[in-house]
């Protein structure tokens, strides 16, 4: 269908830079080592080394580009690459779920994109990748993959009509700032813990250098408070900048049976998510957002995330919206998931179960801390209180609800999560009970969903009323 094509020549530069980036640490070490040990005769050797490495990187960058071709042939996208070891990857376009593009600063300077092809196969890496090509060529590939729908539906006009039905949501700048300010939930907490451990380290040091002990212990309270506040503020800022870079110009559009997402300030990303690939919808209200009635919407997607975010397999569908806007958003973009929930919640007697384990664990940790650091360990006592509060909230928030097709599970870790799953997308359904639960007629529900790698994802609601858990599994059971 097309001649083998090379990438845009700029990919030579991109590749060369990547090779240099990968080599920079060992290179720097070698450079410094040579610089120190060289006799005068070979004073030029470290510079020669750097020169050779740069040259080699350029050469390999060129060869990589030269040997990398792609073509569209016989309904397949055929990518051939590799300088010494040839790698040929042929992907049938019928197996391609989505074609995503992204562009970092260098790409954008030359109007190029990086193209990634996603199939159902799991794993964090895309199945097919072309590091740099012009937007036009990328559009060609997208067109080539899309053609399958046209063949399936003979009537093009009908198809056009479907295509024209679209809805679009954009993240306003104000929302972006709010999202950024409230996103650092885990970041702030980790920063806080980090600060505490640093503090603990310092305490140990103080004990060792006992001369300075008196002097330092006078200062350390003020110092440690400043240190904690400082590191909290710093992690918060870092998280904020990260969120702004990531979600700037966020826009989600529905076209026919696909969601189309565009986002990013420095690195622009464009992704398509076919609706049928969505395994579950996740609504997250973190502790900074919930009090203001704000939430984030994401989707669990089959075969790994379409998102570049390596830490999570879910793909953000909208970074921040008001609770009151959610139903309109779902009606327009994901009508399948619009449901009127009536949660079946854990009974009062389950509260003890929610409190039991987390409290024991924090009390034990606090005990150990007090034992090891004496008075400083007392700083851990507020954590016991926090644990108790979170346990009570977890109990209050937990629940399951279902309609004919959609199961909703709500639970809290730190963030309150509400998961919507179509019954058809649940791969396995678990009901479990341990000794203490059976004594109090409580039960735990868990489902497995085929998103995120080969092992899928699990969602769990603990300590529900036994008969509610039984009803839920009866609802799921295919026997009745």
């Amino acid at each position: 269908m097309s001649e083998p094509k090379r990438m845009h020549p700029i990919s030579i530069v991109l590749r060369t830079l990547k090779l240099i980036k990968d080599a920079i640490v060992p290179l720097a070490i070698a450079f410094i080592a040579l610089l120190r040990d060289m006799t005068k005769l070979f004073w030029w050797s470290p510079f020669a080394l750097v020169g050779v490495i740069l040259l080699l990187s350029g050469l390999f960058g060129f060869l990589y580009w030269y040997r990398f071709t792609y073509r569209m042939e016989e309904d397949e996208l055929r990518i051939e690459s590799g300088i010494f070891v040839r790698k040929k990857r042929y992907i049938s376009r019928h197996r391609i779920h989505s074609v995503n593009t992204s562009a970092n600063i260098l790409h954008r300077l030359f109007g190029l994109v990086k193209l990634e092809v996603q199939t159902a196969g799991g794993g964090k890496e895309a199945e097919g990748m072309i590091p740099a090509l012009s937007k036009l060529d990328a559009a060609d590939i997208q067109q080539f993959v899309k053609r399958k729908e046209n063949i399936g539906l003979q009537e093009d006009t009908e198809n056009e009509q479907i295509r024209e039905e679209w809805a679009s949501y954009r993240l306003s700048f104000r929302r972006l700032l709010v999202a950024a300010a409230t996103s650092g939930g885990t970041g702030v907490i980790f920063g806080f813990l980090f600060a505490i451990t640093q503090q603990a380290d310092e305490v140990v040091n103080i004990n060792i250098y006992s001369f300075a002990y008196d002097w330092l212990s006078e200062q350390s309270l003020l110092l440690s408070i400043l240190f904690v506040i400082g590191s909290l503020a710093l992690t918060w800022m870092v998280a904020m900048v990260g969120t702004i870079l990531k979600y700037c110009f966020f826009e989600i559009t529905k076209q026919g049976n696909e969601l189309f997402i565009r986002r990013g300030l420095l690195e622009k990303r464009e992704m398509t998510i076919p609706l049928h690939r969505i395994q579950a919808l996740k609504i997250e209200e973190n502790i900074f957002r919930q009090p203001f009635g704000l939430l984030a919407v994401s989707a669990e997607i089959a075969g790994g995330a379409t998102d570049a975010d390596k830490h999570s397999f879910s793909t953000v569908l909208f970074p921040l919206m008001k609770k009151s806007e959610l139903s309109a958003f779902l009606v327009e973009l994901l009508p399948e998931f619009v449901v009127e929930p009536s949660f079946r919640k854990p009974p009062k007697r389950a509260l003890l179960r929610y409190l039991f384990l987390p409290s024991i664990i924090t009390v034990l940790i606090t005990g150990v801390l007090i034992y090891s650091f004496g008075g400083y360990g007392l700083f851990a006592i507020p954590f016991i209180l926090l644990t108790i509060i979170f346990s009570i909230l977890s109990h209050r928030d937990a629940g399951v609800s279902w309609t004919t097709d959609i199961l909703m599970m709500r639970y809290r870790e730190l963030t309150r999560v509400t998961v919507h799953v179509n019954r058809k997308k649940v791969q396995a359904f678990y009901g479990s009970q341990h000794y203490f639960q059976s004594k109090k007629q409580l039960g735990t529900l868990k489902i497995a969903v085929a998103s995120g790698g080969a092992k899928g994802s699990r969602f769990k609601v603990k300590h529900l009323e036994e008969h509610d858990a039984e009803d839920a599994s009866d609802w799921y059971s295919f026997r009745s």
Partner: protein
Amino acid sequence: MKSKPRNRIAVNAKKVWRINASLYLLLPIIAAGVLTYFWNTWSIPDFIIYIAWAIIIASLIFFIWLLPALRWRRWRYEVFEQEIYIQSGIFIVTQTIVPMIRVQHVDTEQGPVLKKFGLATVSVSTAATTHNIPALALEEALELRDRIGILARVEEEDV
């Protein structure tokens, strides 16, 4: 949920688990034996030897005597036309429903110990999970595998 799955796995499963557990415990037993042998030579404190053997005896009782029996008593399964229903667990009893239309493939496996008792494990995989039915009589396992294979052969939606 209200009714338990009807079928139990082979009684010999208990023996298989016991043999496996013994094999696993062999290493700590040897280690404790070595410690005891060099008790005087290395002047090891008495209490270490006592604790080591106490732990070993306790885990012998627990892993070889109690656990397999408990595990076997919990283990049940039933294969319906539309789904597979499994109950397992020792302290946490889990009942699992795996719909036939979600089943992607079924395997049978047989390790050396299972083989000695003429048993095999059936494992059922979906797009996200794998479920084992351990220790069925070989004939039964093969039959079950084929049956699930046929029942699962319904037209499937792509994930």
